[in-house]
């Protein structure tokens, strides 16, 4: 982390408010999903707040964002109506996409914001937005948000090349938690991602994505560069996902309720272990243990010390000992989120 000055305090407080709002909003979404008002999958971005806030806080009108299936935070902080956003997750006709899209397929033309549930699709989308911006001779940029798992998808690699070859004003934000659903990304990835981006002659930075200040410095530098030079920039931001791949993540579920989850899994596993044909027993044990160990590894995302919210509070406490400042922000946001949820259920028709 870079040293902070007292004069940064008001900016950091403002960004803390954005992070806190994003966290609380997503926690409210989680509760609503758990209560059964949201169907299907729900991919949470809790743990990504420092990354999203650092980028979105520096965007101006006309800048496009191309977001993956984990887009709640970016959409919320891009000032899209929080009531309409939540209603969309609930499939309501008053949602921002009239209930047609749901949380993986969010679009707001007037906010220059698009998303996709297809891994890697953010790359070509950001390139296309950037191409149009460049053609129109604006100073605007396009941002692609995606996970490290998407980096192995052909269309994303192709878009790195396109952005470089055509000098497109694209900011590639790779949110790297080293998990592609239940796969450890480093085990299915050759070489380093940052070297990959650099090999396309794209200026690149590797950043601790849990740390707002580091992210802020990196994105400030990158965004200025993109606006002024019309060239792509790549940031690999290491982060965590506190809810795993999606709510009800199978690995985290094992972690939270091992006895019940193992009860169902054990029978077939024992059969596989002692089936007549197959590899040798020691190798069977090794392979089984390797998969089971993923459950333990997934739990590391729950650690308090890797929560960006705790890290930013630590930074703030170094700047000021007026705890009231944060408390006031938290109270204000808590109240705001309560009002949003209340309004959502007024429109939705009550909460059972």
């Amino acid at each position, binding site marked *: 982390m870079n040293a902070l000055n007292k004069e940064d305090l008001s900016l950091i407080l403002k960004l803390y408010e954005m992070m806190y709002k994003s966290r609380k909003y997503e926690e409210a979404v989680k509760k609503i999903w758990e209560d059964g008002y949201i169907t299907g999958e729900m991919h949470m971005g809790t743990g990504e707040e420092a990354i999203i806030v650092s980028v979105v806080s520096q965007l101006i009108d006309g800048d496009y964002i191309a977001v993956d299936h984990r887009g709640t935070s970016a959409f919320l902080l891009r000032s899209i109506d929080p009531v309409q956003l939540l209603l969309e997750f609930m499939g309501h006709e008053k949602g921002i996409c009239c*209930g047609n899209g749901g949380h993986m397929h969010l679009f707001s033309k007037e906010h220059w914001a698009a998303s996709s*549930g297809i891994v890697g699709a953010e790359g070509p989308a950001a390139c296309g937005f950037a191409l149009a911006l460049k053609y129109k001779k604006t100073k605007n940029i396009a941002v692609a948000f995606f996970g490290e*798992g998407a980096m*192995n998808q052909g269309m994303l690699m192709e878009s790195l090349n396109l952005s470089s070859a055509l000098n497109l004003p694209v900011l590639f934000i790779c949110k790297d938690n080293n998990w592609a659903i239940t796969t450890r990304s480093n085990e*299915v990835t050759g070489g380093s991602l940052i070297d990959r981006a650099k090999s396309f002659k794209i200026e690149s930075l590797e950043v601790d994505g849990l740390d707002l200040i580091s992210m802020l410095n990196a994105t400030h530098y990158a965004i200025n560069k993109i606006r002024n030079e019309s060239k792509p920039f790549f940031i690999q931001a290491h982060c965590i996902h506190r809810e795993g791949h999606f709510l*009800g993540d199978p690995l985290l579920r094992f972690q939270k309720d091992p006895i019940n989850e193992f009860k169902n899994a054990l029978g077939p596993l024992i059969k596989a272990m002692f089936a007549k044909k197959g590899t040798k027993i020691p190798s069977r044990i090794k392979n089984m243990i390797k998969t089971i160990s*993923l459950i333990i590894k997934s739990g590391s995302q729950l650690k308090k010390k890797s929560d960006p919210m705790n890290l930013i509070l630590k930074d703030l406490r170094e700047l000021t000992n007026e705890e009231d400042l944060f408390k006031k922000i938290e109270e204000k946001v808590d109240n705001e989120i309560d009002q949003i949820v209340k309004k959502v259920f007024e429109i939705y028709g009550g909460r059972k």
Partner: protein
Amino acid sequence: MKTLKFAEAIESAIKQAMEEDKNIIILGEDVHTLRVNLLTQFGKDRVISTPISEGGFLGMGVAAAMAGLRPIVEIMMIDFIAVAMDAILNHAAKIYFFSGGKWNVPIVIRASCGGGYGDGGQHEQSLWGWLAHIPGVSLVVPSRPINAGGLMYSALKQDHPVIYLEHKLLSHYWLDYLGLGGRKNIKIDVPAEGSEGSWPDKWTSIPLGKAEILKQGTDITLVGVGVDVHRALEAAKILQDKKINAEVIDLQSISPLDIKTIKDSVEKTKSILVIDEDYKMFGLSGEIAALLLEHGLSFKYGRVCTETTIPFNLEKELKTLPNINSIIEEALKLK
């Protein structure tokens, strides 16, 4: 005969086939967790986890098949096949023909398909019409544990590419992953006879291109695959109360299509209703009508299909997909 789940039947058939044939391997995203039992038994040389790069690993599977392996390549959801379409359309499907019939591609492409659980239009499509459109690939859609295992076992004995679609409402683990996430307060209309049922101690092949008549009838023919078969059976019960005796055919395989069984039925009933969760235009439903006309039959015809992008809103989604109301409404129009 044992009573077990749909997905367990698939796994059991794969296990038996892998024990018999060392060249069968599994390639796909997350297979170390999704297929942990097979990984444990057969090892990581045969159950290989891939990055999220469908275009690459499906293409790799095609060439591995050309070089003597028999890969099952898993695409998590058939919607994602769009990213890897080239490997099927321009390669897997054409190499046998291009090589003058001298080079086979024995690959099985396994993917989940279908909707009914509120996951939105990029994750709930069926797409079998789009895929079966391509000459050179077979495509099967099981409806019950017994044909889920039998068709998989059969697919693994073919010398040519087979696309195997596993409906998410029938496969308990997919539905739990994507629809429930461990929640107990979500109600989804799962056809009980599809998701659990009897299957044999030892798998034998169900020939591709052979439909099965699940209910004999005289007044109208209802045809479909996957979940639609169960909707048809449910509709047949309601029609029975209205003195309409429906015949229900489970196509099992879309390509090749068992037009003979359909034709024999329609010759008897003089009317057919195709129930097709896939898109309406240029697909299975129209193809069946065309084939029957080519065979010189004269009959009443209707279809219940998905006509638009699937809406995220579950209520709207259930109205968009074929459902018991739309099936009964169309069936009555034909009488």
